[in-house]
């Protein structure tokens, strides 16, 4: 099959094809960047949400958990933990998360362990705000059910 293709043809397919693909991708990137603020409720990113995201990062939570399906597969999905554990009630969720973070690591032999991060009450509230904001992103109805 390759006998009919010359080296020059192959090179032209390479250059032409790549440039076409790059143009399409750049165009779609521009459109996506325009649409993301609305899909993600960018205007609802408070200082607390931003601090929460930073705490999520500097404690490497994504080293065990997924968030919108990305991360590690050792511990539960957290983009919808507000729905799952807080029943979509902000006060209830914050109370839950304070208790949860303080109780780690759970003393159950053999169970996978989550470390103790020694976070302050306001830090835990920031993380809660970040997770609440995340749970409201329009992510095409993922995950399939509440278990994540």
């Amino acid at each position, binding site marked *: 099959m390759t006998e009919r293709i010359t080296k020059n043809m192959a*090179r032209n397919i390479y250059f032409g094809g790549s440039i076409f693909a790059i143009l399409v991708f750049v165009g*779609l990137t521009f459109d*996506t960047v325009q649409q993301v603020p609305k*899909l993600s409720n960018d205007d609802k990113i408070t200082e607390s949400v931003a601090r929460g995201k930073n705490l999520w*990062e500097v404690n*490497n939570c994504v080293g065990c958990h997924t968030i919108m399906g990305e991360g590690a597969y050792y511990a539960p999905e957290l983009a919808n933990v507000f729905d799952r554990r807080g029943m979509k009630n902000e006060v209830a969720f914050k109370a839950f998360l304070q208790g949860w973070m303080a109780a780690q690591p759970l003393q159950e032999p053999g169970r996978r362990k989550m470390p103790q991060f020694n976070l302050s009450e306001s830090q835990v509230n920031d993380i809660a705000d970040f997770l609440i904001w995340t749970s409201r992103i329009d992510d095409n109805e*993922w995950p399939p059910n509440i278990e994540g």
Partner: protein
Amino acid sequence: MKYSSQMVAKPYFIFALILLAGEILFGLIMGTQYIAGDFLFPEIPFNVARMVHTNLLIVLILFGFMGATFYLVPEESERELWSPLLAKITFWVFAAAGVATILGYLFVPYATLAEITMNELLPTMGREFLEQPTITKIGIVIVVLAFILNVGMTVLKGRKTVITVVLLTGLVGLAVFFLFAFYVPENLVMDKFFWWYVVHLWVEGVWELILGAILSFVLIKVTGVDREHIDKWLYLIIAMTLVSGIVGTGHHYFFIGTPDYWLWIGSIASAVEPLPFFLMILYAFSMAKQRRIDHDNKMALTWAKGTAVMAFLGAGVWGFLHTLAPINFYTHGTQLTAAHGHLAFFGAYIMILFTIISYAMPIMRGRPHGNGPKAQAVELKSFWMMVIGMLGLTAALTVAGFIQVSLQRLPDVGALSFMATQDEIVSVYKVRLAFGILVLAGLFTYFYSFFVKEETA
């Protein structure tokens, strides 16, 4: 070996292999923690082991790519390397920065590491695969720039071949896309969107150019097939790579808050991504068939063919398995993702390193015809141990993924929780661990093949 400066590749190869042993060791630690949650806790929590595992993987591949480049560019360019001294300095700076970062992960709590490296000045830490402190990231940029300068000058001043131009394109792309690692917006969706510019556009974009170039170099050397032919194949493969792979980034934009047209565009474009990997199989096997010389280093060709087949399985077949949006809806972020990640990384980027190392190391050690038959027999054994080990590990994770999807994701009512589902899968994780041990044993067998003595007649 035609040029003495090719020798700078040697420490890069040796260090890459050592890091691979470390990587697999931490994989086995995590594999054990999947079964016994208390293992090494709190000394090495899972997330720390995982950072060490994946960061060693990336760094070792970079070392391997650099070694491969330093070996093949002088020979292709028909001149000595622009600056062998700079190549040696780059090695030591990169090795020191890499070791310091890994030790930081292991001995300092991650939040403390962020603090002492002043992450708040330019926060880039704490994202999967890009966990390195910001100063390490800056160090990587400097090392890569010095490296590209060195290689670029050599290529520019010497004979330009399709192989070196494609290789250099891949390396420049690697550097450019890494810059997105410094962009960490407050909006998680934007963060994720551009995070894939590093991760996806590396492994399914520019790294494939590097892979194709290294594979082509070894195929020319061990088959003696003429260059016109090689060049044509290389162009075709990388054309298909970029045409499908760039827009194929969309297969990560299904469920992270990006517009829903990605469901279609990502599915269609990425469905074509297996094609370049399939072409690689045709390429390797038809070059082997049309070979004009019978090189005594049989193992180099074995690794080359193995790379093509295993990359197609890991990236092409296991990638296709979950790349269509309606399927990915159920499999996204499950053990199936891990199954694919393992076979793809191993088949494509670890095996290509074995290919070039197995070709180049004997030459650098004064054996232009490759290792003797006894050493090659040991090496062949190590080849099969590692390949079977990784296939078994992948098969186990695939079964784990299916169980996870059917218990946790598919049921509308009565779905098991994540943790309860994991408890159901423990026996499969034991199988995974056993195959992982086989991989490490295979790697040690490979190391041993370097020390096999031949009887001299």
